[in-house]
């Protein structure tokens, strides 16, 4: 009994009060230091304000104040101020304790124009479970036992057993390669190899594609720095290069490209040197992959470039003399189509597709983010990524592309004629000739331009026979302006020098060309030659008749004169063909898919606890069905929900969501700047707060120093707006706070405390 009395008096004593105050002060100081050192409020509060010991301190204060008041029994009038003060303190403490356990503090994330009535309670753990055919998800709080382990949950017909927990983890997407194995939906899994450049390239799989034939599949793991080299190796595997004479159509050489790369190859009348460039980086992607071929004849080098990617891919571009036409040797690539999946050390997947004509396309699937995802049955059917492979589009090969360009030109000519547009004089002449020869004008024009283009000559060579159908037309061609004859004569003299690569201006200077001054303003050889051609027409009236004007000319010679006539009007295939991307294409693309999943890595917990992403492994059971699933914490509760039990449920590990009795609609959010400045002065949001039961609404503007409080104590604070730029729809974070004891315990307690203090002074004075 004496002992009890001693304890009783101690509980109400100044000594106990001082111990409590001192301990609380030390705890608060410690909390401040810990938070400052760790930069983590959560870490600090775990050991101080949120710890059970701090709750014990609060209880201690409560007992101390209560007992110190009760010790005054029996009470007298003079005790009134003292009792009022203590009652006030007890009410404040009660309010604090109730707020600690029953209060709410969470945040609402709202997109402008939308609304929300569900608070996200940060640093809490729950599972969101959504059943198929149900629009409304349910939230199940995850509670822990005294050892810190999560307790099993029974909800509806589900039994959820938490098996494993990690305080921190990281995640990355797994797409085409999962756990070192390649996956394409509808196909058997295929092996992924570590790339070793000293060994032959292994093949992961071969698949048969309808309408397309066999496609090879390669899959590798390698470091980012080896990517470029690997892609080149895979590209060169079984890739054949073919050289064809454009005029005769004869194949000059067909060989594995890797056998001739970087070497001088002998072709009839010319040597070829081929280089392959496939520059690739994981940041910028493919950077204009191409094949460059250098043809050497009589010490003159002609360069032909073939793009391997893009709208102009596979066209043989004559880099050295583009305005002379195509290089007389066409280059084609032939291979088996192939897919190559490469996973680098960051788990990013690089997918390369090589079509049967040698084109390359590439897509990247980063482990951290994906641009687009397929969602099946709102997630119940899982998620996937798809790629569209540009296989088998039409036109496909180089020859088909060149034919498509000519077809487009013919179509443009037909449209022009049907609209009654005027033809240039050389084309008018050809039209009249075709009428006489009973030949199709458009077809003839197109055939001649294409044939001439393949000669790689400024004018059509007079000794080169024409195809039969063209010969028939040119036999009927009437005599052309005398300027054409003189141009032909001039170029017969200067062609050999032009072929050697001599500068046209210098050639004309050596020949003492009288009108050289007018040509000196041109910087490009093509402009000099065009100018020279046009000069002949400019002075045609004063030109004498050439001696040959009375001769009967061969069709080839007529063709040469005609080409001079066309040059005067800058009509040459190179200058009148449309770009290939303007030509309509018919894609026959191939789409492949793979399921999407996350892979996780457990990590050591961070001191800054706010940055931790916990991981949980659950066994979900319904009746006899059981399934294991690992989920990473979704801090905002807005990410993917994962299907379980054959897609019957969707699950997400996230903070608790707590509905509040108010729906908040965000009308507008804005940053208000100082006048004539981009510095923010204030952040404001126009909201409509509607009580869900009564449907009574209030429109308010909340800002950084202007909160909204409802009659029942819900307080809405504007926490953040992002992005702050004008022109972007904003997302706002509103912190909501509710203290259920505020109006009946805390505030009245404060009033009583103040009254008690005043009365204490008054009574003392008296």
């Amino acid at each position, binding site marked *: 009994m004496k002992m009890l009395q001693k304890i009783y008096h101690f509980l109400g004593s100044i000594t106990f009060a001082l111990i409590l105050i001192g301990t609380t002060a030390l705890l608060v100081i410690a909390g401040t230091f810990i938070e400052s050192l760790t930069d983590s409020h959560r870490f600090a509060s775990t050991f101080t304000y949120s710890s059970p010991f701090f709750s014990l301190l609060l209880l201690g204060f409560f007992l101390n104040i209560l007992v110190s008041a009760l010790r005054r029994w029996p009470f007298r009038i003079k005790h009134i101020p003292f009792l009022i003060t203590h009652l006030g303190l007890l009410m404040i403490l009660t309010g604090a304790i109730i707020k600690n356990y029953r209060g709410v503090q969470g945040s609402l994330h709202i997109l402008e124009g939308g*609304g929300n009535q569900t608070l996200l309670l940060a640093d809490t753990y729950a599972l969101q479970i959504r059943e198929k055919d149900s629009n409304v998800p349910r939230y199940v709080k995850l509670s822990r036992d005294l050892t810190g382990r999560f307790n099993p949950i029974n909800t509806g017909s589900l039994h959820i057993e938490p098996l494993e927990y990690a305080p921190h983890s990281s995640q990355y997407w797994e797409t085409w390669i999962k756990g070192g194995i390649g996956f394409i939906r509808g196909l058997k899994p295929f092996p992924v190899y570590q790339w070793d450049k000293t060994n032959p390239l292994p093949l992961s799989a071969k698949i048969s594609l309808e309408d397309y034939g066999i496609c090879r599949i390669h899959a590798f793991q390698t470091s980012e720095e080896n990517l470029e080299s690997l892609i080149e190796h895979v590209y060169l595997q079984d890739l054949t290069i073919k050289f064809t004479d454009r005029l005769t159509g004869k194949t000059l050489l067909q060989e594995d490209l890797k056998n001739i790369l970087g070497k001088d190859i002998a072709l009839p009348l010319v040597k070829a040197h081929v280089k392959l460039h496939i520059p690739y980086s994981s940041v910028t992607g493919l950077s204009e992959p191409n094949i460059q071929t250098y043809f050497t004849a009589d010490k003159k080098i002609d360069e032909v470039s073939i793009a391997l990617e893009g709208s102009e891919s596979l066209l043989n571009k004559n880099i050295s003399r583009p305005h002379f036409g195509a290089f007389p040797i066409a280059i084609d690539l032939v291979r088996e189509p192939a897919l190559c999946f490469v996973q680098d050390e960051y788990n990013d997947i690089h997918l390369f597709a090589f079509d049967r004509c040698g084109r390359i396309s590439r897509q990247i699937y980063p482990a951290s983010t994906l641009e687009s995802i397929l969602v099946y049955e709102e997630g119940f059917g899982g998620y996937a990524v798809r790629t569209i492979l540009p296989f088998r589009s039409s036109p496909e090969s180089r020859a088909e592309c060149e034919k498509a360009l000519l077809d487009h030109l013919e179509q443009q000519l037909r449209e022009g004629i049907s609209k009654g547009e005027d033809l240039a004089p050389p084309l008018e002449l050809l039209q009249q000739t075709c009428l006489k020869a009973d030949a199709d004008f458009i077809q003839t024009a197109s055939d001649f331009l294409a044939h001439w283009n393949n000669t790689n000559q400024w004018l059509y060579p007079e000794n080169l026979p024409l195809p039969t159908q063209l010969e028939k037309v040119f036999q009927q061609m009437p005599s052309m302006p005398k300027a054409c004859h003189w141009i032909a004569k001039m170029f017969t003299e200067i062609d050999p020098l032009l072929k050697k690569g001599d500068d046209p201006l210098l050639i004309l200077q050596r020949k003492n060309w009288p009108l050289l001054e007018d040509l000196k303003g041109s910087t490009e050889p093509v402009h000099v030659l065009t100018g020279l051609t046009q000069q002949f027409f400019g002075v045609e009236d004063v030109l004498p008749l050439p001696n040959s004007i009375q001769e009967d000319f061969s069709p080839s010679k007529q063709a040469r004169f005609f080409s001079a006539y066309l040059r005067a009007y800058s009509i040459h295939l190179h200058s009148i063909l449309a770009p290939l991307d303007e030509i309509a294409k018919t894609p026959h693309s191939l789409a492949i898919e793979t399921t999407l999943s996350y892979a996780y890595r457990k990590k050591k917990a961070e001191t800054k606890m706010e940055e931790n992403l916990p991981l949980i492994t659950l066994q979900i059971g319904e009746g006899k069905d059981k399934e294991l699933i690992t989920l990473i914490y979704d801090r905002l509760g807005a990410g993917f929900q994962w299907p379980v039990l054959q897609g019957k449920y969707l699950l997400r590990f996230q903070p608790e969501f707590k509905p509040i009795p108010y729906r908040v609609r965000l009308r*507008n959010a804005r940053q208000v700047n100082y006048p004539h400045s981009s510095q923010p002065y204030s952040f404001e949001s126009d909201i409509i707060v509607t009580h869900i039961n009564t449907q009574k609404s209030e429109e308010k503007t909340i800002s950084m120093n202007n909160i909204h409080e409802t009659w029942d104590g819900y307080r809405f604070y504007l926490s953040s707006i992002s992005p702050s730029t004008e*022109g972007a729809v904003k997302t706002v974070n509103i912190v909501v706070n509710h203290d259920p004891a505020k109006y009946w315990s805390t505030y009245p307690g404060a009033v009583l405390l103040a009254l008690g203090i005043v009365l204490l002074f008054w009574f003392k004075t008296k």
Partner: protein
Amino acid sequence: MGKVPIFLAILLILCGCQNETPPSAATSQWQEIHGRDEGDGIRQPIYRVKTPKGWIRHDPLTDESIFDTTKSLCEFIIFEDPESIVRISLHNFPTEDLEQRIPPQAQIARWKQQFETLYTPNVIPQAFAGYAGLLFTGFGTIKGQEVMVMGWAMQLDERHYRSLSNPANQEEAIRWRQMRGDFTIKAVGPKNLLEKHHEDLILFARSFELLEEIPSHL
């Protein structure tokens, strides 16, 4: 004894301190704007906008179909004298999917083309009520007359568009199709009049919003 009244007085003064702006007099009022019909002349209220007092409202006839998007949903007139009026027309452009939407830049380009001569056009980004787009201001000549144009071309945020793309029934489908639509607000009139009512026009446009909250799962 003297301390108590001083203490009480200080307490009362502190309790009396409040920072509350008295409510401003009502100079504008909310008005509902109907969307388009589906060719049957039946229109539903879809939007609301805060309109200054004194602006004259002009709606299409009740039996007139405004399915055609070249017809306005509603017009407002600021009338000073018969020679000096500002005409404000509201349009929306309902679509079935994201790809059908007309970019705000295309609307602006179309307005620019209406000018025979255009001096100092200005285009700035805007965002409010879940929409993002552009505000165009231009002064020049249209059909020989000098006019100023202020035009907003706004598009619903893609996330909201998707939220409005899964209606539960036919009624919702019709209403949500209207809600998904882009909108334009175009004010045309004499320069001095538009400049005089510039603030009102800005507040008017920025108050334009959907009547109904855009659905979300939260």
